[in-house]
């Protein structure tokens, strides 16, 4: 297993390097294609050509792309210095670029936003996993019942309703009108755990509603498939209690695809729940990306893209490891 993890980790690093090159290339070329000059954006609307040239040099945009990328890559492993006027600002390892609009290292900005995104993603994931899988199992076991039909109907609604609808509806009912959660805003866990949870509850429920619908439908389908397998009949014929048949033989086999999708979903969310954070005004990674896009703050967009890619790739690795644990047929090869 150790060798498997090491080998896959090397693959993760290589993949991240390729992603970083591709992303860097896109962000280098994109402004040119749409006729945008990052230096002019930085210099401001009233800047003359001489100032823009000065800024271009200061940002290193006068260099060829490979030199710019080499500097960027070096910054990730060795850090970089940026001139801020009277002195220099050191961008620590891993320096994923420097936002000249915010005068902050991209990595520091992302770390600052990470607790918000993690709080939102983990809480929602727990909710959707419990509710989605439970409802899916029950629906499969009570196939055709009123519960099954109702649950799948709600699940269909959950899949169909985007979070910017359920989020605004949730805010309208529970925050603006009933005022159960007035003035929803992010509060750090360490500042006030109770306030942290109460402010996150509506986003958690909205996100969980969206995702649990998928999980309920997926679990139901998998359970129905596995519960019809020969080995389930064998298990029952051996006289095993039904609870054991469902939990140890049925659910475990149905779990494999759920683990896969859960890893990817959680990885994606950790890279930024763009819509949810925007709807609720929570300053997470997703909101950072949205604001950066609005301001064409390319270093941040690049950093967040790499960050999101990192989570998805790592989530894949974790899923692969868990696979073998969940399904004995899979081996670490």
């Amino acid at each position, binding site marked *: 297993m150790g060798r498997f993890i090491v080998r896959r980790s090397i693959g993760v690093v290589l993949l991240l390097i390729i992603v970083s090159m591709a992303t860097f290339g896109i962000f280098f070329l994109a402004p040119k294609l749409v006729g945008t000059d990052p230096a002019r954006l930085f210099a*401001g*609307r009233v800047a003359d050509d001489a100032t823009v040239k000065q800024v271009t040099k200061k940002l290193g945009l006068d260099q060829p792309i490979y030199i710019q990328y080499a500097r960027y890559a070096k910054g990730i492993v060795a850090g970089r210095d940026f001139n801020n006027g009277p002195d220099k600002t050191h961008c620590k390892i891993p320096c994923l670029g420097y936002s000249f609009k915010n005068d902050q290292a991209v990595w520091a900005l992302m770390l600052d936003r990470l607790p918000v995104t993690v709080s939102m993603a983990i809480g929602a994931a727990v909710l959707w996993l419990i509710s989605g899988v439970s409802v899916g199992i029950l629906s499969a076991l009570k196939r055709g019942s009123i519960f099954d039909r109702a649950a799948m109907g709600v699940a269909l609604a959950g899949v169909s309703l985007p979070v910017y609808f359920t989020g605004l509806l949730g805010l309208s009912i529970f925050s*603006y009108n009933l005022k159960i959660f007035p003035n929803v805003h992010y509060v750090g866990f360490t500042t006030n755990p109770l306030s942290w949870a109460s402010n996150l509850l509506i986003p958690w429920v909205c996100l969980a509603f969206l995702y649990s619908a998928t999980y309920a439908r997926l679990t139901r389908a998998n359970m129905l498939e596995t519960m019809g397998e020969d080995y389930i009949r064998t298990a029952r014929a051996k006289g095993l209690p039904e609870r054991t048949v469902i939990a140890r033989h049925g659910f475990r086999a149905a779990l494999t695809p759920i683990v896969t999708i859960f890893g990817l979903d959680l990885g994606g969310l950790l890279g930024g729940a763009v819509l949810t954070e925007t709807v609720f005004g929570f300053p997470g990674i997703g909101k950072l990306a949205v604001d950066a896009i609005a301001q064409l703050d390319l270093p941040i967009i690049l950093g967040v893209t790499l960050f999101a890619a990192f989570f998805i790739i790592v989530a894949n690795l974790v899923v692969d490891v868990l696979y073998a644990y969940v399904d004995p047929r899979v081996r670490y090869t």
Partner: protein
Amino acid sequence: MSRTYLLKTGAALAVLALGAAACGGSSGGSKTNNAKGVSAAYNAAITSVVNVSDKKGGTLNYVASSDFDSLDPARTYYAYSWNFQRIYQRTLLAFQPKVGKEGAQVTGDLAKNKGVFTDGGKTVTYEMRDGITFDDGSPITSADIKYALERSFAEDVINGGPGSTYLKPVLVGGDAYKGPYKDKAGLASIDVTDPKKIVFHLSKAFSDFDYLMALPISTPVPQAKDTGARYQFKPVSSGPYKIDTYQPNKLLKLVRNDKWNAASDPLRKALPDTIVVTEGLEPDDMDSRLLNGSADMEIEGTGVQPTAVSKILTNPESKKLADNPSTGFTRYITIQEKVPPFDNIHCRKAVQYAADKVSLQFSRGGPVAGGDFAGQMLVPTLPAYKQFDEYPSGPDHKGDLAKAKDELKQCGKPDGFSTKIATGNKGKGPKTAAALQQGLARVGIKADIVAVDAATYYTGFIGVPDNVHKRGLGLAIAGWGPDFPSEYGFFESIVDGRAIKAAGNSNYSEFNNPEVNSLIDQAQTTTDVAKRNDIWGQVDKKVMEGADYLPFVADKALVYRAARMSNVYINGAFGAYDLMNIGING
């Protein structure tokens, strides 16, 4: 000029100013406002101070959709950032904390009085007040203001603000100065030999110099605490509050500055204990928070969203907490005289007459959220404003198609022609472009819309004349408000032909009339206010006669104030609620 990008100036219409004047007032510089307090009513804050009170304590909860452009006084250019900084920063001069047009007048802040102009207007002297301090208790001297102004010249580090643009051509040696990080000797034309006095030596007489000294660029910065580009994270305070917490795009919290000497500050009341700004909220979310009382005010002053507009106007209880001021912006279409066929004035005039101003007004949000019809460039909030309409668009404002067709004949294009309309791809721009397109199509002018990235629309697209020529962008959607509430502040960048730049240009139509250029110079050296206003009136008329500009609305916004707030009024300098002295009554 984008709405958020430059100072939104001048709220009060002439009639409103009369109302304010009728309320009486005290002498300039007093903390007592000029208008008698009134209770909440629709538009009450445009003419009077709503809920006058000196009650201290409590926390004000403000909301904003985005972060301030910068908390560094030399780098900020957003109107609401300038308005907000008045709470905790002091400047050499300041716009008076008064209602309407009186608020657009400057008065002494760190300086005792306005500047004393000598040497034919080429030397300006300010005397500093006693007892003025930074938030660490150290005294503020004239050297701190000199250093602050010099920082503006370091454009590769201290970017974004307008300081160098104005100071470079005005101060002796300003055009060659590169800022204090590269030139330690400093700018000799700012003399601070006496720590209680600051003397400016100008390269030419500049009657609006006092206005420049009321901008955030004159906020003192102690050299020892200057951290260059990072100064915005911890600017040193000179007013009654200081920054306790600043998390960009998330939160800004101000607390009392116990080193502030109230006796040295005749302008600020310093009522609440704490001021919190929650940033990064969705506009509709902000409106809901305002309406349910969990937020006190949206500080950007851009107005509520369409959903909230109807909610507010149909509910008497909400309506009495709202105001519909003029923001001091003109929305217009530029007609590029170097892009054929607009090199022919009759083709430009055809566009003037063919435009449907009702549709254009609707594209901005209608008469309440959009603004009043405009027939001239100058905004009604400036003293030289005299209403006229050079190209009347019919009694219903839907265009005068007969005149448009006649102009087309004179232009040699009786069946119309093809051109392009440039617009940013966000906000109201695309709707305005579509409204213009439909209006022009009625006389055979076929205009294709070119929508580009809104973030660089002004800087990199229509602000580059070469780009405009090459792409054949005959028409462009634009908006403009002055950086400071004077006619010079309004006109100079957009109609002075000598200000046309190869990049970063604001005179998009490349209007260059030597007569107008000469009038602008004349106005700057004319001290008689009536004569000066008359000259600016001539500039306004001649600009419209050139037919390069098609103004369609004078901007307005529907803004909302919490019932519990005290001392709320629209200040003419910002076209928005003055944030300086708001307190909490409830």
